[in-house]
């Protein structure tokens, strides 16, 4: 018998370590250590009901266990085989206690659709994909459905583009189908560039065939025989796996001429991107594929009408495509039963930042931020206080504690001043300075702007200059006004999505954390202590014994004082290196 004690941070914070220890000693005292093992596990993703103890092999799932419950669990369950009913999870819908975690699927917040095969099949073996319903959807489309029917199904499913914009995929396919041309293209946008987002890479590395299959289905629908994957060259493993997968699909005749004897032909080529963020914008992506400078052009014309080489081109991103075969196999109703009214299905998020369970998750649309961060994500690292979460990468904004219970979908995020983006979620805690965070993201957009339009090229540079000024303690109230005006103008006048969203991190942190900006500007203080220039190293006269250690270590001779007398830091000279703080043995140096 095994007793599994959750060792996730959330549970540890509520004494799971004591429980673990008590379980062990109690078992030892009963002389059962050979029959019963106690081990800690990773997070169950159910922190709200923690600490969790799971008994194997009968899968009993005890929630909210306290050290006081240990004896009862051992006496009753382990020795007498009787479950401790009061510790069982109560299904909130039926009010019945659930004893077997096998019947607790509903506690699992995640549903894996796009990631269905990731971590499950060998991505380099097409048979394993086929074994998991692979290419059935393509077969079904080609033999049993007309392109119009497939498009109708896609529209009914409510699948929206997962790359950020959220344009309905079925509608895009329909428009591309309606554009007449001798050649049309299916393009898969695998130019994932948001800092902290890597779901597309994971899908291509873990399940490349799902994308290939979906592209072929899309080709069938729009009447195009050529597919192109625009993938960043920094993803060598994804490229390798994709190439292997394309090769295998060709060998099986699932790509190439006359697929499954239906007369439909489709093949895929790779195009490598040099890692420019702006090339995730579809017109820039297309220009880059054409061998031109990767910069956007005005829409309309949309790629669906005039795209690659001037031909109608359907561009979807990796995650969008990965959903397609499942929709075909399981039906539009099944898919649209998941999620919210306007955002159907699931979304993959890359959880990062100050969160315990950093990782890739896939959750139904409409899930709350609280569930994502405190359940699946296992809460904030080191028991710190949650401050905000940045969604949508450099194009998004921050959501704060007041948004914790907002259902996550495309429209709610925009209403909250952020956006879905490609699904990066960077969690920030009390130690993060929001001005610095805004600066971090702007730094990225300034680097990644293509430079074509003036507001993005120069405006973002000016924004970051103002932020730098503020972080150095030289900001004025006028700067704050300028920041807001400039941010709004950049949004209003930039050519493409990059510039139209680049001020979001600034504007949204200003909306939600204006007091932090004020602290930097008016009080010349960084509340989180992140802005080095605003730190003040001060020597406490009470504790200082005048050992002179700090004065000797100071590289710029900013500290003065007599031996055995109180020392003083000259703030004008101090470079905030922190050497004095480290050196002082008497806790006399502190940061203000």
């Amino acid at each position, binding site marked *: 018998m095994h007793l599994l004690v959750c060792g996730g941070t959330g549970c540890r914070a509520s004494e799971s370590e004591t429980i673990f220890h008590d379980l062990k000693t109690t078992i030892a005292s009963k002389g059962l250590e050979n029959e019963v093992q106690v081990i800690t596990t990773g997070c169950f993703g159910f922190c709200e009901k923690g600490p969790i103890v799971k008994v194997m092999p009968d899968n009993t799932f005890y929630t909210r266990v306290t050290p006081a419950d240990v004896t009862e669990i051992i006496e009753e369950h382990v020795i007498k085989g009787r479950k401790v009913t009061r510790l069982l999870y109560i299904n909130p819908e039926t009010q019945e206690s659930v004893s077997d975690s096998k019947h607790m699927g509903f506690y699992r917040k995640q549903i894996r659709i796009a990631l269905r095969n990731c971590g499950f099949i060998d991505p380099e073996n097409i048979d394993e994909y086929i074994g998991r319903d692979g290419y059935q959807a393509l077969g079904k489309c080609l033999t049993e459905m007309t392109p119009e029917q497939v498009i109708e199904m896609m529209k009914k499913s409510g699948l929206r583009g997962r790359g950020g914009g959220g344009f309905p995929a079925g509608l895009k396919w329909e428009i591309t189908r309606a554009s007449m041309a001798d050649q049309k293209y299916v393009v898969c946008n695998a130019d994932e560039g948001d800092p902290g987002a890597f779901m597309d890479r994971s899908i291509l590395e873990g399940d490349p065939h799902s994308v290939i299959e979906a592209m072929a289905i899309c080709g069938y629908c729009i009447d195009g025989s050529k597919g192109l994957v625009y993938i960043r060259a920094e993803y060598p493993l994804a490229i390798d796996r994709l190439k292997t997968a394309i090769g295998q699909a060709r060998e099986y005749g699932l790509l190439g001429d006359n697929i499954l004897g239906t007369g439909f032909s489709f093949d895929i080529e790779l195009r490598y991107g040099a890692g420019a963020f702006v090339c995730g914008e579809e017109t820039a992506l297309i220009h880059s594929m054409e061998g031109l400078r990767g910069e956007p*052009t005005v829409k309309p014309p949309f790629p669906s009408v005039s795209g690659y080489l001037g031909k109608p081109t359907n561009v979807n991103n990796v995650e969008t495509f990965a959903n397609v075969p499942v929709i075909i196999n399981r039906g539009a109703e099944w898919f649209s039963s998941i999620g919210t009214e306007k955002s159907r299905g699931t979304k993959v998020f890359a959880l990062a930042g100050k969160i315990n369970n950093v990782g890739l998750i896939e959750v139904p649309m409409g899930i709350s931020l609280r569930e994502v961060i405190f359940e699946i994500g296992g809460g904030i690292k080191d028991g710190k206080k949650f401050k905000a979460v940045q969604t949508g990468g450099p194009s998004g904004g921050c959501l704060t504690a007041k948004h914790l219970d907002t259902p996550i979908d495309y429209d709610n995020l925009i209403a909250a001043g952020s956006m879905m983006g490609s699904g990066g979620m960077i969690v920030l805690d009390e130690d993060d300075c929001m001005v610095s965070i805004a600066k971090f993201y702007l730094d990225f957009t300034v680097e990644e702007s293509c*430079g074509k*339009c*003036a507001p993005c090229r120069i405006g973002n540079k000016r924004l970051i200059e103002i932020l730098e000024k503020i972080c150095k303690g030289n900001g004025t109230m006028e700067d704050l006004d300028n920041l807001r*005006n400039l941010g709004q103008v950049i949004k209003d*006048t930039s050519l493409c999505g990059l510039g139209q969203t680049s001020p979001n991190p600034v504007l949204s942190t200003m909306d939600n954390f204006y007091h932090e900006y004020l602290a930097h500007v008016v009080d010349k203080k960084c509340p989180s202590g992140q802005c080095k220039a605003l730190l003040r190293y001060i020597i406490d006269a009470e504790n200082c014994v005048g050992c002179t250690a700090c004065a000797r270590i100071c590289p710029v001779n900013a500290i003065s004082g007599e031996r055995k007398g109180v020392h003083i830091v000259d703030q004008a000279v101090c470079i905030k290196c922190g050497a004095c703080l480290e050196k002082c043995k008497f806790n006399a140096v502190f940061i203000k």
Partner: protein
Amino acid sequence: MEMIKVTIDNKVIEVEKGTTILDAAHTVGINIPTLCYLHLHDLNITNKPAGCRVCVVEVKGRRNLAPACVTECTPGMEVSTHNIRVLNSRKTVLELILSDHPTDCLICPKSGSCDLQSLAQEMGIRQIRYEGEQSTYREDTSPAIIRDVDKCIMCRRCEMMCNDVQTVGVLSAVNRGFMAVVAPAFERNLDHSECTYCGQCVAVCPTGALTEVDHTNNVIRTLADPSKTVIVQTAPAVRAALGEEFGMEAGTLVTGKMAAALRRLGFDYVFDTDFAADLTIMEEGTELLDRITRHLKGDTTVKLPILTSCCPGWVSFFEHQFPDMLDIPSTARSPQQMFGSIAKTYFAEKLGIKRENMVVVSIMPCLAKKYECSRNEFKVDGNPDVDFAVSTRELAHLIKQANINFLELPDEDFDRPLGDSTGAAVIFGATGGVIEAATRTAYEVFTGKKLDKVDFEQLRGMEWIRRAEVDFDGFPIKIGIAHGLGNARKLLEEIRDGKADFHAIEIMACPGGCIGGGGQPLHHGDSSILKARTAALYREDAGKAIRKSHENPFIQKLYEDFLGKPCGHKSHHLLHTHYFDKSNPVEIE
């Protein structure tokens, strides 16, 4: 055409479907400011990358502002072109552009004719709220063009000219974000690129980022040197445009005033490149007839068509891009170089002075002429046939500096013997003019008959590529004309593919020919100016007593006294040249 109704600034107007907001607004007298936008209507040249964002307007129901230059009107659209949101955005964007632009306007070569400066003035910009770091780049000086790209505002007009119109492909955007700028590949210098120095980039640059190499000070110093005999020649297209620099209407002919001004500037002899243009016709025409005659006699080695070679931008272009076809163009030097060569031999001998003591200055509508006169094959013992090629714009500066009231000047004649020319020479300045001049002479020489009518209307016009047939007394001569190097490329590719059966082709690098040259007064996107200049040249031609080059008595005398016969030994030495393969593959340093 489907008509749609839109509302702009509360005015309901009806426009054709597909009309942009910018154009629609123009029809009701609303001028939305633009900066990167450029539209040369008659030439069908358009640049609208929608990059400057100065023309943004508010469209009801749209999330962000719309660039008027590219946004097409849709039925029922409601547009505000100057509400507070639009004005604030427009001003902010302009301030941003100015914040990354040197403010050395007072000493900028473009001062007074800078589009950015005028816009800042119109918009009433009195402060820049967003000051910060400015992007800086290495300055690049070539024989003809200076790139001071600190002043580049990424309007991409030059890039469009260089790539789409000229297909030279030297200028394109490099770098990203704040450091993005237009430059040759690998940010090399122009003189290490395939640049032809056509100067069309300079002609459209809204700021001082692209300007000509200025020789005005060299000219002033030379004129002040008593040991030098300073001779000036003026190209045909200059007289049709110089007046614009003094506020005269485009298309005003200022031939006489120009000659008077040059004399007052202190030139010892005021001559005319037109004289050399007549000489060019003698040489090139003879070459054409020689090739045709040999062709008719069954000589299969003869190369047809013959291509004109007066345009130095065009010469550079085929040396770089078509090195396999160097034997097709005429070997005749350009009029500028023929003039220099004759001046420093024939005329220097006449004056009895050494060539070192003679300085030849040319006034050109062209920047490539600066490069041409620096080419080694046009030097004798290191002394160039033409010392300084000065643009129309530079001449205007010279005149202004010399305190000459140009508008009040009397009309004066050129000096003799190198100042007299025919109507055939003056039309060299317009596309189709050289070939028309050649036709007038070649016809009479070939057929032995007098032309009743010297005007060949079929060779004129603004169409990019023109094809015409001229009946040489039963023998049809097929003529091709292209202006703009992109169109030249098309014709050359036809020839290379054996698809063309022309006898003669005229090519001019600049749209419209020399009247649209890179050294001319700036047209600021108004193509009617180019048309007016063209018309002026044909007017001058029509008013001339002699309109055929071979009838120029001074040309006849030059051959009698000095050269012998056209394409003879001496003229071969002095008036012809050879071409070089310049197709060096790019090396990355």
